[in-house]
């Protein structure tokens, strides 16, 4: 099943939407725009009818697997169900049709929303202040690193240039640190898949600015020594940054602030179920400890108390001289934040507890079912996700990539593969709490079936997928001769 490009269904002169008439007296174009500013040839946008547009994008959508249509056990991405009601509440014009430069008195409802949402995040995470500005998790990390840098500089310790990162970390961690001019020091995980305290102590020096740690880590294991880890860093004058990608496992029961971490970003699109949209928009609020509050970005919402006749007012406050500055135009991904807020409110405290409970239950159940059929490199009980290794299957010549492709044939999206890097032929599986027992059983059955197929006919598995809209792609060609845009036939100029 294939769909032509929208450019290929284009016909000169065909129109879709009609524009309103020009209801003001027309001036000559030449007078308004001298020729040196004018474009010489029009941009070759498609010329199609409305039905062409509808059919094209509807058909394209049908080529996707999604949470709405398929189980999507993509580890570390928390692909849970996205409630439809969130789209409705966020889309109302009283929220979506506001301009960022409207003065505060016109948008008190919005400011109140952001203020209270921030308050809920503080409660859930046990940290005293949040910035809602970061656009995504990686953006939160970047902001966090900027704050770490500024904090040390303010204390006259600008020589702290190193960030310690476990070898199991997400790639964004070292990339964010490097973007801030830090040098990355990798610490190896121990045999249990956790941060090796001895190795960590050895890595400490007066040059260490901070450690970035994910908890539960990317193997789905809780870093049980987290309190000691924070102590080791703090005693050496360093800070602890927590990548909150895996907050789903702790929701409502464990607060990162209580562990002793100084900075934490959340991924609202993961933990708080804003739809991933095929890869964004996300939202990555950053929470910090008391000592780091002065460095958060501007502006911040302030509630100005009711006095005399004037009621409580929310305003933007720019007066933070030690702030790292702005990391984004305007105030953050408001549309995503509203959905996360709606989620917390519908669940309440008990609902949040149920989330972490069911997320961990589901992961352990699936892990139990699969552990006899695939290698389980770390045997400690998992939290919300777990990592299998396809090394047993690799001996038959079938790689984890092949297994992933075969899963597509059976109507399941694939787990995250080849990550974390410390596990050979890794398959990282995160079922999330919104999947029921039946779906997990079906998935386990297919995984076991594939393990059997590998024993009997490895070649067939290597040829997968067979049932998807396209078969396996030539990625070498794509990278060697990059074709990144449609080339119009010469005569369409």
């Amino acid at each position, binding site marked *: 099943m294939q769909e032509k490009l929208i450019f290929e269904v284009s016909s000169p002169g065909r129109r879709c*939407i009609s524009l309103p008439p020009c209801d003001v007296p027309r001036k000559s174009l030449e007078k308004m725009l001298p020729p040196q500013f004018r474009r010489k040839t029009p941009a070759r946008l498609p010329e199609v009818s409305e039905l062409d547009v509808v059919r094209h994008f509807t058909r394209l959508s049908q080529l996707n*697997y999604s949470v709405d249509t398929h189980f999507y056990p993509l580890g570390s991405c928390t692909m849970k169900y996205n409630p439809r009601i969130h789209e409705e509440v966020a889309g109302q014009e009283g929220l979506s049709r506001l301009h960022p430069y409207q003065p505060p008195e016109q948008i008190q409802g919005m400011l109140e929303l952001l203020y209270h949402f921030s308050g809920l995040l503080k409660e859930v995470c046990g940290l005293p202040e949040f910035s809602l500005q970061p656009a995504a998790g990686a953006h939160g990390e970047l902001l966090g690193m900027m704050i770490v840098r500024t904090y040390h500089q303010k204390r006259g310790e600008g020589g702290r240039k190193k960030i310690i990162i476990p070898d199991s970390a997400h790639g964004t961690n070292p990339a964010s640190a490097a973007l801030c001019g830090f040098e990355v020091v990798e610490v190896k995980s121990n045999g249990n898949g956790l941060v090796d305290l001895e190795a960590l102590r050895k890595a400490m020096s007066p040059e260490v600015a901070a450690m970035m740690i994910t908890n539960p880590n990317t193997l789905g294991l809780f870093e049980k020594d987290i309190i000691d880890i924070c102590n080791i860093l703090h005693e050496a004058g360093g800070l602890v940054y927590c990548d909150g990608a895996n907050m789903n496992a702790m929701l409502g*029961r464990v607060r990162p602030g209580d562990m002793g971490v100084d900075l934490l970003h959340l991924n609202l699109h993961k933990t708080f179920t804003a739809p991933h949209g095929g890869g964004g*928009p996300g939202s990555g609020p950053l929470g910090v400890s008391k000592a780091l509050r002065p460095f958060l970005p501007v502006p911040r919402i302030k509630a100005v108390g009711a006095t005399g006749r004037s009621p409580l007012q929310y305003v933007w406050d720019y007066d933070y001289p030690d702030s790292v500055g702005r990391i984004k135009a305007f105030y953050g991904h408001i549309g995503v934040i509203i959905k996360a807020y709606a989620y917390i409110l519908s669940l309440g405290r008990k609902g949040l507890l149920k989330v972490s409970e069911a997320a961990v239950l589901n992961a352990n159940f699936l892990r139990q079912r699969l552990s006899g059929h695939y290698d389980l490199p770390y045997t400690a009980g998992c939290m919300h996700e777990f990592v299998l290794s396809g090394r047993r299957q690799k001996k038959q010549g079938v790689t984890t990539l092949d297994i992933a492709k075969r899963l597509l044939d059976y109507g399941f999206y694939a787990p995250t593969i080849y990550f974390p890097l410390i596990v050979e032929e890794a398959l990282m599986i995160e079922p999330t709490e919104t999947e029921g027992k039946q779906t997990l059983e079906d998935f386990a059955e297919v995984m076991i079936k594939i393990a059997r197929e590998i024993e009997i006919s490895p070649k067939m598995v290597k040829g997968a997928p067979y049932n998807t809209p396209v078969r396996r792609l030539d990625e070498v060609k794509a990278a060697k001769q990059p074709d990144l845009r449609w080339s119009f036939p010469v005569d369409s100029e």
Partner: protein
Amino acid sequence: MDYVPHTTQEREEMLREIGVPSVEALFEVIPERLRKATPRLPGALSEAELVDFFKGLGGKNKHLNQYNSFLGAGVYDHFIPSVVGSLASRGEFLTSYTPYQPEASQGTLQVLYEFQTLVCELTGLDVANASMYDGATALAEAALLAIRHTERNKVMVSRTVHPEYRAVLATYLKPLEAALVEVPACEGVTDVSALKDRIDEGVSAVILQQPNFFGCLEEAEAISAIAHEKGSLLIACVNPISLGLLSPPGDYGADIAVGDAQPLGNPPFYGGPHVGFFAVRKELMRKMPGRLAGATTDLEGRRAFVLTLQAREQHIRRQRATSNICTNQNLLALRATIYLSALGKEGLMELAELNLQKSHYAKDKICALKGFSTPFGKRPFFNEFVIRLPKGLTPDSLNNRLYKRGIIGGLPLGRFYPELKDSMLFCVTENKTRNQIDALVYSLKEISRGLPRASKVRGRGAQRARKS
């Protein structure tokens, strides 16, 4: 209300199979003292209560459908055809993720390939990525690219570039200890002779915005020539709607073009999420940040799409990646793609001209009022323009009075440009009817009546913007 499907019986069965007595046992690996958190959170709401709650919050805001708004300054109120929302909200687009498995993500990948093509067409550049967080971060990442590419550590940015974009740029450059030099403005545009005097071989890039923050059109070709003479790159930050009429950045020699595609079918949403676009000349392709979709073939020789040139990205190159960006703004890029497809080749040109006609009508009418003038003379502009108010009328007091008449006025500029504290930036898109514009003009006339008469000399001729 929650979304956990397990029945009590299923839960028991699952626990039994795992071999633990209770769910609590699964959390025992966590130190006990950490498990005692009791966050103070409200009780659960039903769907109906939730709707009421947000209606209540929304009701406390004055939105752009209720009021006649003339705000722009980076966020624009354009009409959004219904096909955009209805197609983009399909669950298969909405609830999928980054197309790591291309065989099961051809929809998203093909959309990105089409989006990249559209951005190339608009900007006149060779390669575009799958999008960035917003225009401001796209601009900052463009500067980082220029620094990496030229191995020079200085960036020059015009004072006529959006102040919040410049603020983001400064935040991004600070940790790298790269110098940010501001090029002053003269009569509402970049002071080209000042640029010429101050540029040197240490400059990695010169950044201009077209149309600039004041709505004025820059002498882009002259700026481009000055930048290239010193081996610096030219980064142009552009408004995509304006490109229906204006020269594409590729034509005046921009090496990188960035901007925000919010105007292309995305609601203002109080400033986000929006979507940055990023296009470069071919030589810079492998130094780009962000995702790229490419065409290739599948096993059976059919055309198919895949994320490519991934070796630049953080999940592979980690600390040596071209950026730390992990996602794009996929859903908004999709909306922009649908919007541009629905608008079409003629439609975009017509739309741009409607913006141009209506904003010129508004500006002419306002400037004909006693005491209102433009500080920037006869500079060509697109859909925004700066108006200096009559003496005795401040932008804030004017806006307060307009608001009482159901009008959201322009942006007071004093906050960003102290030298323009008596001036405002107005935006007029195709979404404004003549009646709405006339209502603004009438209100301005009414409000300014009875003010002390403004001196005729004020407001004419050159005003050199101070560097603050």
